[in-house]
């Protein structure tokens, strides 16, 4: 307080001023005559001397102020002129590798606030210039050279760039004391920039190598660029873009082919597409292992690329559906793929790998389940082991919950076979109970199987007896279980006694019911059939069409038009015949796609509700953005929820008093217990 006032006011202030004036004069003449290194040496000397003076003659409190003054006059005022001196300034020192002088420059300027900025800038510009020169040299040499050694220039260049990098890292450590300002300016960006220029070269760059399948060359590229910090990033990027482009092109091809094609082979193009995508995956996986040494960066690039085009729709079918259909074709008897057991296993493995890239996994599950049901119930499954095998693989990927229903379905069939054996025993032991017709019943556990509508079909008397008998048997086996009969899934073998010969007809239960009506009447109208069987118009039209207007005309229709109308009359076509003794009358299935999509949407709504409630229950209060992002994350294992859908569910939960908005902040939500 009081002690230094006189010293400071009466002496120090003037001393500082005079010192400043003295050095200002000195500096103005030195800057004209001296080179930068000399000037710096002198400055350093001056600073040292002043420091000594303080310790000999002055109070220690003056040291900082004095040195600052000297620095200001010598170094700050003339910073630009000094650094930019043509033949001896910073650039020249760098050019001539004068490490000593550069170290001095650093020491002098590091004490000055922002003093190092111009030095760091010059440093960066210098390196950039040197690097650019190397690249241009290499480009000239390459264009002049014969094209039989194209990679050599590049290799040469990369090693020169790396040398450059190392040289300047030495500067950073020795001269610039590893100061962050200099670290930033050096090379990662520069190297990556040059790497990009080389990679993007039209005929020899990375894209070209990928296009021409030059695995060896790609491998060399890998080894080259992995030495550069973050040098592999652009390579991986190009890899990803290339795969994405190829995959998207395949999808578009399939879309075009499908729309141009005649409608008598629907689904073929889509199946071909899946095959091609599998091949694409195999091909580029090989690249990842052979050229890119299994580096995670390239695994990631592959994954992201596939995720892009594996979620595209082809002629109205989602990729989830396409994949499920593909599996169906492999697993069913007489499917379009005729493969050995081993080949099937291999293909299933690959399918499961593709499945990982699909975002609508729940949609795939539902389609798969529907098709599995048809395979199992209509005895179309080629091989039980394969069925179980793919389920195991899916379970490994997605967890048990994903496959539990499907596994239940397969088990039901096994149990059903055992049950049928018991039923047959029962009939042998109770001959009076026998319905007179061979009957096979498959009992399905409701929760595992897709939901089926059951109709109140008026069964023909013969079948009614069958149902009764089985019910009797079933009640001896189990109590407290309700059987609901799904006739739409049944099959019937009926003997058609035509004039020329008797032919065994394999039809669905519904078709059989229609045909049996003609045992009692010769001729029936549409309305009569409808009244007797109690079916809907849609179903009846489909049925009658399959029997009267399709390939095998078991019934004849009056008038003999190609479609069914409600005023038609039908008769048993006794003149029908075929060279085979047993024919199957197909009943085209109803298009399930719409229903599957609806069911999945419904399940998704429940899943979103559950996720929101779960999150809010544990967090109690949460902002909108966060709630949405946590919700998306939780559900991402099964599907990618639409933000709008999440909002709608949130609003529904508000209406149902699970949540409320905060009174003051409408972006905040509270859980209502």
């Amino acid at each position, binding site marked *: 307080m009081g002690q230094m006032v006189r010293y400071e006011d009466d002496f120090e202030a003037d001393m500082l001023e005079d010192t400043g004036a003295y050095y200002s004069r000195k500096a103005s003449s030195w800057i004209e005559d001296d080179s930068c290194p000399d000037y710096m040496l002198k400055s350093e000397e001056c600073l040292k001397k002043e420091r000594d003076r303080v310790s000999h003659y002055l109070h220690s409190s003056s040291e900082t102020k004095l040195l600052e003054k000297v620095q200001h006059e010598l170094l700050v005022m003339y910073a630009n002129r000094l650094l930019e001196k043509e033949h001896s300034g910073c650039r020249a020192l760098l050019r001539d590798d004068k490490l000593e002088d550069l170290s001095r420059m650093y020491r002098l300027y590091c004490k000055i606030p922002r003093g190092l900025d111009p030095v760091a800038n010059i440093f960066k510009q210098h390196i950039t210039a040197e690097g650019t020169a190397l690249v241009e040299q290499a480009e000239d040499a390459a264009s002049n050279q014969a094209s039989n050694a194209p990679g050599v220039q590049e290799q040469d260049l990369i090693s020169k760039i790396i040398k450059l990098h190392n040289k300047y890292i030495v500067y950073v450590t020795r001269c610039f004391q590893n100061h962050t300002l200099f670290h930033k300016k050096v090379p990662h960006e520069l190297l990556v920039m040059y790497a990009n220029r080389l990679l993007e070269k039209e005929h020899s760059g990375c894209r070209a190598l990928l296009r021409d399948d030059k695995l060896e060359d790609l491998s060399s590229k890998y080894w080259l660029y992995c030495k550069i910090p973050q040098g592999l990033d652009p390579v991986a990027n190009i890899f990803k873009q290339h795969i994405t482009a190829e995959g998207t092109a395949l999808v578009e091809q399939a879309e075009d082919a499908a729309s141009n094609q005649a409608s008598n082979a629907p689904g073929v193009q889509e199946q071909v597409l899946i095959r091609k995508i599998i091949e694409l995956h195999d091909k580029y996986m090989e690249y990842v292992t052979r050229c890119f040494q299994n580096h995670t960066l390239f695994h990631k690039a592959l994954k992201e690329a596939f995720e892009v085009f594996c979620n595209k729709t082809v002629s109205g079918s989602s990729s989830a559906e396409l994949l499920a259909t593909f599996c169906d074709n492999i697993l069913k008897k007489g499917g379009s793929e005729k493969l050995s057991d081993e080949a099937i296993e291999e293909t299933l493995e690959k399918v499961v790998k593709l499945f990982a890239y699909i975002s609508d996994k729940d949609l795939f599950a539902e389609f798969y389940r529907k098709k599995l049901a048809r395979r199992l119930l209509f005895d179309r499954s080629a091989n039980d082991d394969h069925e179980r095998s793919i389920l195991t693989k899916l379970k490994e990927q997605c967890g048990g919950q994903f496959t539990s229903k499907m596994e239940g379905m397969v088990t039901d069939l096994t149990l059903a076979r055992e049950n049928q054996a018991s039923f047959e025993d029962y009939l042998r032991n109770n001959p009076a109970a026998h319905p007179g017709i061979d009957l096979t019943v498959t009992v399905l556990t409701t929760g595992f199987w897709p939901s089926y509508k059951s109709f109140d079909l008026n069964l023909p008397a013969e079948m009614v007896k069958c149902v009764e008998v089985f019910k009797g048997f079933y009640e001896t086996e189990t109590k407290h279980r309700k059987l609901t009969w799904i006739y739409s899934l049944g099959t019937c073998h009926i003997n058609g006694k035509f004039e020329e010969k008797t032919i065994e007809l394999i039809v669905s239960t519904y078709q059989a019911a229609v045909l049996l009506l003609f045992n009692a009447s010769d001729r029936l109208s549409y309305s009569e059939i409808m009244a007797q069987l109690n079916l809907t118009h849609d179903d009846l039209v489909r049925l009658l069409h399959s029997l009267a207007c399709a390939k095998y005309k078991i019934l004849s229709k009056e008038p003999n038009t190609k479609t069914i109308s409600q005023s038609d009359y039908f008769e048993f076509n006794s003149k029908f015949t075929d060279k085979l003794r047993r024919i199957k009358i197909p009943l085209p299935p109803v298009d399930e796609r719409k229903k599957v999509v609806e069911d999945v949407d419904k399940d998704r709504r429940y899943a979103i509700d559950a996720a929101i409630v779960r999150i809010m229950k544990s967090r109690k209060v949460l902002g909108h*953005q966060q709630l949405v992002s946590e919700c998306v994350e939780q559900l991402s294992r099964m599907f990618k929820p639409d933000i*709008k859908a999440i*909002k709608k569910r949130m*609003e529904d939960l*508000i*209406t149902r008093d699970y949540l409320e*908005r905060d009174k003051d902040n409408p972006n905040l939500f509270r859980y209502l217990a």
Partner: protein
Amino acid sequence: MHKLGRGHRDKVQQFMTITGASEKIALQALKASDWHLEGAFDVFYNQPHIKSYTDTRYLEELYNRYKDPYTDMILADGITLLCNDLQVDPQDIVMLVLSWHMKAATMCEYSKQEFFIGLQALGIDSLEKFRERISFMRAELKDEQKFREIYNFAFGWAKEKGQKSLALDTAIGMWQLLFAEKQWPLVDHWCQFLQARHNKAISRDTWSQLLEFARTVDPALSNYDAEGAWPYLIDEFVEYLNENGIIQNGEVSD
């Protein structure tokens, strides 16, 4: 009254005229506020027990005039009569404000309790006073806080008993009424959008958030946050406005 000074007498007179209260009440209120007229008004309107002193006999009379002959409630006919007496259109928004004061459960009917609560809150015990209070009620709509309360009240009042949501037609009618007061330029577009694209009932959350939207987001949507927690219907409305070129470059065009 004779013992009061002239200034005080005038105040009592004024008080009685404006609030319609009796002399006794006027004196109480003015004394309680140290003969400041403004303060006396506050006292009067904020103290229910003073109001319950308001002659319930007169309220009975009024109630009986409008009540339905067969039920102990005022129903549509009674309300029409009331509106006639007040020289107010039954569709006038002032009836909503009245219902709000009554805390009426549903539109087109008032229970005896609701009628009494409302009239007492407004200090009404005669038709004359009733007519006088109309401009006061209209003025209440200009108060931001009260408007919000009335707006949010309207949802519960206008919807069907037992329903959770408000039928679209009723909602549109209410919005047009309410936003005529508030002057929201997008109200017509909003109603058109709903009829074209939504066609379902309106949830309470959407209802209340719409007011916030009208209050805080400018008609050119320049400060609309698409990532915000707006109900999805409002997000769709914004999309609709953009798609149909109603909002272009931050300008509202017609």
